């Protein structure tokens, strides 16, 4: 009986990982960015770059999202919002920090209303450099994240065969 449940869980997890890799849904939150990264993220969705061919969809609600794409340094006003958006996302969830500001505070280091960078508030999985990063770089960041997921899938399988 227990064995059956375990198999059921394994199957479910496999389906989840498969769905995550093939069709991750992303949400975008700007916590104090200058807009530069935001328009580049939007540009990745448009015909030239067309991120949607990887099955990635940018959509509105954090409750439906797998990936949180963050831009900008975190301002005092946006900190609670960023945390709330992150907490509203269902597990498993991943965060991509886009742009120099999101990584280190960038040009805004030392401004009185800046708390810091994204990973001082929420954990980050992938960092994309640039001010702003090119759309190709953002796509590369997303693909890196998907590869990471795929790797973790392989590792799990290897662990299973070793058992």
């Amino acid at each position, binding site marked *: 009986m227990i064995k059956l449940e375990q198999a059921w869980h394994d199957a479910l997890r496999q389906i989840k990982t498969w769905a995550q890799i093939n069709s991750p849904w992303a949400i975008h939150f*700007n916590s104090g960015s*200058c807009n*530069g990264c935001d328009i580049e993220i939007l540009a990745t969705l448009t015909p030239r770059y067309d991120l949607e061919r990887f099955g990635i969809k940018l959509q509105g609600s954090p409750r439906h999202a797998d990936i949180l794409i963050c831009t*900008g340094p975190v301002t005092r006003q*946006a900190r609670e*919002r960023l945390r709330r958006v992150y907490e509203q996302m269902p597990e498993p969830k991943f965060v991509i920090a886009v742009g120099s500001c999101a990584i280190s505070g960038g040009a805004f280091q030392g401004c*009185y*209303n800046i708390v810091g960078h994204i990973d001082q508030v929420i954990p980050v999985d992938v960092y994309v450099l640039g001010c*702003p990063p090119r759309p190709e770089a953002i796509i590369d960041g997303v693909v890196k994240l998907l590869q990471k997921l795929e790797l973790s899938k392989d590792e799990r399988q290897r662990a299973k065969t070793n058992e």
Partner: protein
Amino acid sequence: MHNTQAEKFIVPMGPQHPALKEPGHFEFTLDGETVTHAGVRLGYVHRGIEKATEARTWVQNLYLLERICGICSHTHATAFVLGVEKLAGITAPPRAQAIRALIGEMERIHSHLLWLGVAAHEAGFDTLFMFSWRDRETIMDLLEEITGNRVNYSANVLGGVKYDVQEKHADALRRALDFLETRTEHYLEVVKNDEMFLRRTRGVGVMSRELAEAWGVVGPTARASGVARDVRVDAPYAGYVDFPARLILQTEGDLEARFSVRIQELFESYRLIRALLDHLPTGELVKTVPRRIKAGETVSRIEAPRGELFYFIKSNGGDKPERVHIRTPSICNMSSVLSLAVGHPLADVPMLLAGIDPCFSCNDRMVLLKQTARNGAHADEWTWEQLHQHGIEYYRKQKR
């Protein structure tokens, strides 16, 4: 029985919302579908840039101020540079001034095409969104070819520009303009004739000339209501002295007029860029500007894609500015959305908001509202000594 008549229904929007690409919080009180009251809470993107300028040198500030807004970064830098040059008593060489105007116009094209896409997206017209963003990539490629970056080009330096426009750039630009011109003609036709789209725009959010003047609206939003106001025409700066811009004016004041004014401005930008390329002055690109700027204060006005951008710059003779104050076009236009939204169905609100082309990262400046205290003095105003004393006491408390 529940009395629904007396109850207010409030719809919050933001700070994270699919219709907003940037954080801003709106609250709409509804009666059925109709908005009866609208409120806004801004400041999510307030970073404290004006204060930060005081801790950075004149050159460092150039790069900081460029990052106020990623869409109109060049205009911010140009406004600052022109102000500082005025203080230092230096005029940039004519070729630099022309290249400033050239990149400014390229930025206007990219900004207006971006806006056209976003506004169409708010109307549910995603085909137009995708098409206009596809065409926008041609101008982004050229911006990258000339300056090396797609966004935040940093073409300006104090005393001139960094990048030269060569003959190969000019040829590529001319070809791109030919392509964009045919596309823009198509967009103008769509915006003026598409029946579905006209139902979302024609007669929606009508702002009369009187209202536009009373609310202090600027830029294309004002020009769609018949207010003839364009800094490029009224007080030419940089390259616009030798290459005058034409004023695009429309009097209807509804969303359709705002669409058509911006699209016609694209044609004007194409014409200006062609004129600039054909008669680009020759000569040097940069003049040397001293590290310390002469003491004094000045204002500098620029026509950003969204309207008049205003800089106040004060120097005390050092290598850092004493005060920089920035007034951006979006904050001037924001109040008009709140007043216009009243009486419209909620579904029109994202369109009205997109109609002014809001830019929240420009928006979130500190504004001081004077409140009179009981004893007649201004409660919010502190003298330097008071502030100094407060700082000492604050940190003493922190230490304990």
